[in-house]
């Protein structure tokens, strides 16, 4: 089947055009802005400052603190999602009567908008009327109600709890699909070789699941690292700056601080860090 050489380009043109205008051009623009000193109240005067915005980051304690919080947010958030989702996938792969129903319902948190997730957990963790404090008090786990979202020591844990709740169903359903794709013969062969349950898990389940795990972890990591709406809704980065991750800091610096140049530089650094992770993944999976 021969197609005219121009046909693929004709078909791709609308999607490409939208992507260039709305993604690549703005990204290049942000890169350009990051080399300037741009302040909201005098947008026409934007002196070129080279890498000064990036140099300023080295001295900026809030940048390093935000980077550290982002690291905690991604490692704890994605790590816990993965462990809980993996456990759920292994359980849902077993035989039991209401399996179909359980497989369908586990997805609910993943379908909800971040604003609703923020709302659900702000309500669960409410000081006066929240279910968590009430149950904690009734069971004797808490002596007094805890203001979860308004004290620095617990606010980060609270937003991580919310992101874990939102994301673990993603791992549950993708890893479940991966488990179902492992041919049963592999388990039969392992059983013939005298492998117990633990050995079968190590030598059949884990290797069979590895590509799915790697892809799912990468997708979620990028998503969680970039996401700032959940934290914005629940704490706005506070109390103080105790839940202010790197993307949120970039966002607040650019908008509330009206410091576009510096905010852009922060966004560029975040993008480069993620790019590094993606390249490392691509290089590893190409080997």
């Amino acid at each position, binding site marked *: 089947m021969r197609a005219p050489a121009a046909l693929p380009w004709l078909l791709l043109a609308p999607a490409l055009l939208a992507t260039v205008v709305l*993604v690549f051009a*703005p990204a290049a*623009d*942000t890169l350009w802005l990051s080399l300037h000193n741009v302040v909201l109240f005098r947008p026409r005067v934007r002196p070129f400052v080279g890498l000064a915005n990036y140099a300023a980051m080295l001295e900026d304690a809030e940048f390093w603190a935000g980077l550290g919080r982002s690291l905690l947010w991604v490692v704890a958030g994605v790590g816990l999602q993965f462990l809980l989702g993996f456990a759920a996938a292994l359980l849902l792969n077993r035989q039991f009567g209401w399996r179909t129903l359980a497989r369908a*319902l586990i997805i609910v948190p993943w379908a909800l908008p971040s604003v609703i997730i923020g709302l659900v957990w702000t309500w669960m963790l409410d000081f006066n009327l929240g279910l968590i404090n009430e149950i904690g*008090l009734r069971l004797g786990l808490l002596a007094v109600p805890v203001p979860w979202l308004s004290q620095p020591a617990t606010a980060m844990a609270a937003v991580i709890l919310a992101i874990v*709740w939102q994301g673990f169903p993603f791992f549950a359903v993708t890893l479940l699909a991966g488990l179902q794709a492992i041919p049963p013969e592999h388990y039969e062969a392992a059983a013939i070789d005298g492998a117990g349950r633990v050995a079968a898990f190590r030598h059949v389940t884990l290797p069979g699941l590895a590509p*799915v795990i790697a892809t799912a972890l990468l997708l979620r990591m*990028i998503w969680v690292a970039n996401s700032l709406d959940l934290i914005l809704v629940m704490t706005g980065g506070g109390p103080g700056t105790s839940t202010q991750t790197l993307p949120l800091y970039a966002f607040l610096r650019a908008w509330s601080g009206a410091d576009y140049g510096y905010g852009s530089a922060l966004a560029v650094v975040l993008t480069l860090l993620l790019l590094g992770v993606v390249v490392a993944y691509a290089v590893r999976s190409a080997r």
Partner: protein
Amino acid sequence: MRRLRRILGTDLPVAAILAFALLPWLWMVLSSLRPESDYARYPVRLLPDTLTLANHIELLARTSFAQNMRDSLIVAAGAVSTGLLLSLPAAYAFSRLRFPGRRALRVQFLVVNMFPVVMLILPLFVLLRDFRLLDTYFALIIGHATFTLPFAIWLLTSYIDGIPAELDEAAMIDGATRLQLMIRVVLPLAAPGLVAVGIYLFIASWNEYLFALMLAGRNVRTVTVALQSFIGENQVHWGLLTAGGTLVALPAVVLFLFAQKRLVGGLTGGAVKG
């Protein structure tokens, strides 16, 4: 004995995980059905004496929420149609045609997913302002459609890959032009895939917050932005807020349960094969 082991080893842990997944959401739904007086009572009553729709009715009658839902619906419908119009031809080209740069272009679309919204939002804001498109349906529709393109193209390409190429060849031998082929052969066979991708586009647009906040918000105010502004008001009215949360979550949850199999299959297809 065996039965007991199954209950303790499987049913109970599954029930615990499901409780974690569903209880916070059910607690919100239940809270929205409580009478006003329950919110002034301390300690919290786990189960209300009576259930009422008063919060939902007040929300729709006395606030802008019905209008916000209309805005969200218009934006989501626009994002679905625009997204499908952009992604279907691209997916067809990736699946059926071989051309130089095909691989690089496929990767290019995936890279789009990687850009943080903070990296793009300011120039987008300026661009739309210069064209006087800020705070319009168009701004949100084109924004949502573009940011969902990578996944939409990926899903649709794998659906079209699943349609046997022999059908194309048979139609070509019968003298069909490529356009006829696309409309008469591929389109009907890809319909289930289009429905799944359409549902994905709808949920993604309906749930989106940051674009809707930054690029619109005054004339065009979607439900997520409206709900967030309710939280910000000096006196948090939990009855209205949980009613709003319940109503906003409903379409996404129902559609997701409906399309779950196809979406998950499409999402994991590449990874499982890889």
